[in-house]
Every structure is written in structure tokens, then in C-alpha cells.
């Protein structure tokens, strides 16, 4: 059974960390894909809290290969910057970093910026940390209005944050931010770790508010190539189809063993996905 058009699959450069941007884009083109999500802020896709590099060469590289960047994903787990930073200087820099990420993404044609709740210190009042996260997202939403970019907020694993690591936490943040530019996205790994189903997500947020996915296999941990985990691909896709999901299926692959030869693992992955995408 084929559920969605192949162009709904989006490649993600996260496991191409050891390779140049050109190599990632060439491989994506060879895989017959049309969309990319770009993890950015670092090499080849630089921005920071003071500004951003010229997006024109990147736009040209995309156009030359018939690719679109519909989702921008500023580093939000491993760089200095995060959405719920406590220190005031760090908070302002984080805002500027993500704001520049949004601007950089808009220049590339992205309509979505991928995000999460961020995290507080493990031993602080989590209500305070949640408030900081909501305020940060409200500010970014205002910029999103100007740039026509919408935030897609995913859940994190409980080892990463005590804020939005499950549906309950994300719904709380969603209600606190309360802005039409603030939407959510399913990360299959975080969802599986929290023991949730796709249907629960659609029941909680509605189709109109789920605008993106990180759609990879897992067991339930790990961000794996389809086949390397234990999720039911058919059932997951059927659930998205039944709920009239309109976003992309971004392949967020983070197993370190993939990094040395990401294209090899992408080919394995797409071979499996091709059975379900037309």
C-alpha cells in the first residue's frame, strides 16, 4: 500500500555531518528526493546571534539540484543556544540565534522552523523553565509573522528535558504560547519513548496543528534507518493518512555508525520507504 507521494519524504543533513554540503545535496538528488530539512548554524550554513552568512550560494546549490528547503532546523540540542535558557545573556543570544535561523531559513524559502521546548536545570522549578520557553517562543512567533515562518515544536526525550518531553508537556507549552505561528510536530522516537501513538497526537492537537514530522525508525530509542528499529511503518503511515496529514516525513538519522557512509544508509532507508510512497 502506498500512502503518500515520494516528494513528501525530506532528507535531513544531520548524519552528513562529516561531509560537505555539496555531497549531501548530491546524494539527496540521487535518491530521487525533492525536499531537505537543513540542520544549520554551522559549516556551510552559518548563522549566529550576530548575523548570518550569505544564503544565495546555498539557494543556488538547492536550485541546481531541483531541491527545496521547506524546513530549517537551527542547532537546538547541541550548541550553546536553547529555548529555555536561564542565564539572561544566554537567553538573549539564544533568541537572536534562533531569530537569525528563522531569517536564514526564510531566505532559503523555508516556511517552517523546527524547534523544541528547551530545558531548565534539572534541579530548578520546572514551571519557571516552562515560562521561559513559552516567552521565547512567543517572541519568535512575532518574528515568524513578519517572515511567514511557522514554528514546529517537537517533544524531546525525558533524558533531554523535563519540559515538553511528552504530549502533556507539549500541550501545556502550546496553550501557554497560544500563537497561530506556534504549531507542533511528531518525532517518532520521542513519541515512542513516551509510549504515545500518532492518533493521540492528532486527537490532542488536530490535523491543522501538526505540520511536520521527524519520521524515522526506533526501538523506541535511537533515530534509525527504517528496518533498524522495531516500529510498524505501515501502521504509522496509515495513521498519518487517516488524519489527512499534509506535512513532510523528514528522515532524522542520528546513529553514529551511519556518519561514515550516510549515503549507503540512505539508500537502504529509501528502498524500504519506496514501498509505501508513490
Amino acid at each position, binding site marked *: 500500500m502506498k500512502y503518500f507521494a515520494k516528494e513528501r519524504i525530506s532528507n535531513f543533513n544531520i548524519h552528513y555531518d*562529516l*561531509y*560537505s554540503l*555539496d*555531497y549531501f545535496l548530491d546524494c539527496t538528488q540521487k535518491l530521487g528526493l525533492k525536499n531537505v530539512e537543513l540542520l544549520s*548554524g*554551522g*559549516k*556551510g550554513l*552559518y548563522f*549566529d546571534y*550576530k548575523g548570518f*552568512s550569505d544564503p544565495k550560494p546555498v539557494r543556488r546549490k538547492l536550485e541546481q539540484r531541483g531541491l527545496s528547503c521547506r524546513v530549517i532546523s537551527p*542547532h537546538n540540542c*547541541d*550548541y*550553546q*543556544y*536553547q529555548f529555555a*535558557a*536561564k*542565564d539572561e*545573556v*544566554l537567553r538573549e*543570544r539564544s533568541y537572536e540565534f534562533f531569530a537569525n535561523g528563522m531569517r536564514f531559513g526564510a531566505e532559503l524559502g523555508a516556511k517552517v522552523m523546527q524547534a523544541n521546548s528547551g*530545558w531548565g*536545570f*534539572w*534541579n530548578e522549578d520546572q514551571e519557571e523553565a516552562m515560562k521561559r520557553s513559552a516567552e521565547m517562543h512567543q517572541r519568535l512567533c512575532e518574528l515568524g509573522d513578519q517572515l511567514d515562518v511557522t514554528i514546529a515544536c517537537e517533544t524531546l526525550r525525558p*533524558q533531554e528535558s523535563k519540559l515538553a518531553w511528552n504530549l502533556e508537556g507539549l500541550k501545556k507549552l502550546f496553550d501557554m504560547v497560544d500563537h497561530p505561528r506556534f504549531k507542533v510536530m511528531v518525532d517518532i522516537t520521542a513519541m515512542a519513548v513516551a509510549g504515545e501513538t500518532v492518533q493521540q497526537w492528532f486527537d490532542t492537537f488536530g490535523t491543522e496543528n501538526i505540520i511536520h514530522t521527524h519520521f524515522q525508525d526506533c526501538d523506541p530509542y535511537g533515530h534509525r534507518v527504517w528496518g533498524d528499529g522495531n516500529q510498524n511503518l505501515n501502521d504509522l503511515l496509515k495513521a498519518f493518512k487517516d488524519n489527512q496529514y499534509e506535512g513532510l516525513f523528514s528522515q532524522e538519522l542520528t546513529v*553514529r555508525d551511519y*556518519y*561514515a557512509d550516510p549515503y549507503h544508509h540512505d539508500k537502504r532507508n529509501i528502498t524500504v520507504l519506496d514501498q509505501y510512497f508513490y
Partner: protein
Amino acid sequence: MPSIKRNQIAAMNIHWKLYPFEDFLKTQQQLGVKTIEFWATAPHFLVDEYGYQENYREVRKMIEEQYGLKVGAFTPECACFPYQIASWDKGLWERSIEYYKNGLECASLFGAKIEQITCCGGAWDQEPEYAFERAVEALRILGPAAADNGVTLTVETVRPEESNVVTTLPELKRLLKAVDHPNVKAAVDTCAMGVANETLEEWFDCLGSDIRHMHFIDGRPYGHLIWGEGLHPLDDYIETLNRNHYEGYLGQELTVVDYWFDPAQTDRKNMQAFAPYIKD
């Protein structure tokens, strides 16, 4: 019995990222630690290509006066951040040099004599030699800056999963020779060393007194583990340090995610492993 001095053990805050910096300091004081290797990044201390946290004086005061600790080595984050001296991206390469220069200034401001660095950023679809040259060129610029600050820049090897250059002892030797600056020296990382099938003996035989710093942790050989959780014989390792008259720091770079949630307990267990060897 092989022995180390208490102040050689340099506790690191790398697995304390979910807790405030002061909690880290408090625990080290309780554990009788005297030295820290300051892992400098958010949320503990901000440094980037533009500068560093303005309240560094207060931070140093807190470290030294409130908790009786000393910064032995200053280590700006160099694995996760967009600062890599072997990078193919020219802009990033230039920003990395500014970043590490600021790190050298910070090291000096905190009274540290060591800044720790890696050679990452080479692209797998390009010739490793190109990345090697980028690293050499960067270190030739950073060497004099290190001298100006009275700091030695120590380069460690990394695992082959992290970089396509300087992952082995012979490569590091070749790098240091190419850079040829008295303020650019070597650091042992026992994880990278183990992964490369090298021994501590071989490192001392090859580099001798050019070894100025260490990330001295247990491993299998992968992992940056507390002593006792890996496969390395601590007794033999310390004996090797003694035989080679190594008096530098033993940075405790502990990176297992499970350590993040109760870092104090992690450090306590680790210090227990060192306890029999500490001779003040």
C-alpha cells in the same frame, strides 16, 4: 605503590551541563578535589568568536576563594560546536581561530596554563591531507597567540569517527613537527589512544615531555568512563605516569549521558577509584 598528587586530578564540568556551575564546584570541594579543567560553554561559561563572559573575574573568584579550587586547564567546547580548525569551510575556519584565541585569553585570565584543542572538521568527501593542512595552518596562528598569553595549547587525538585527521599518535607527531611551535604540544586522550590500539608507553616513548596534558579516563576502549567501569588497568597506567615523570593534569572528561543526571554521584565513585593512589 604508584601515586599521583591530589592537584593532578582535574575534575571536569562536561557531565554537569544539566546543573548550575556552582553545584559542580560545591561537589568538587566536598570530594577534596583541588583542580578543575574548565569545560567552557553554555550553560556554565560563554565563549565564542566575539569574546567571552564579562564577569570572568567573579567566576574566578568563586572558583578560587569560595571553593578553594584552581583552573588547571581551560577547554572551550570543541566537539559539538561550529568551531573546527580543520574545517573545509573558510569562514568557519577563520571564526574557529578567533574562538580559540579567545579561549587562550580566558585560560590566562583564569590562571590556567593549558588550553585543550582537537583537529576536527575535515570533510569525508575530501582529501584528509587538506584537513591536515588547515589544522597546521590554524595552529601556526594560534601558537604565537598561546605564547602571548603564557598558555600551552595541547592537541589531543580523537576517534576516527570524529575526524579524518590526527586520530593516531604518528599523525599527532607529524602535526606537531609541522607546526613546530613551543606553545603547541600534545595531550593524551586515553579513549582515542585505546581506540587507535596504542598504549600509554608508546605515547611517552614517542612524545616524552611534549605530553603536557591528559584526558585520563577509563574506556572499553570506547567511552569516556569513570575508573572501574572500563577495561584500563589504573594501577599500570599510574605506574607508567610515574616512570615517565608525568606531572601534568589528569582531566576527568566523563561523557556518558547516564552521568548527566547524577553527576555528583559519578564524581564520587570516580574519586574513590583514585583515592588509594593519592599522595599529597
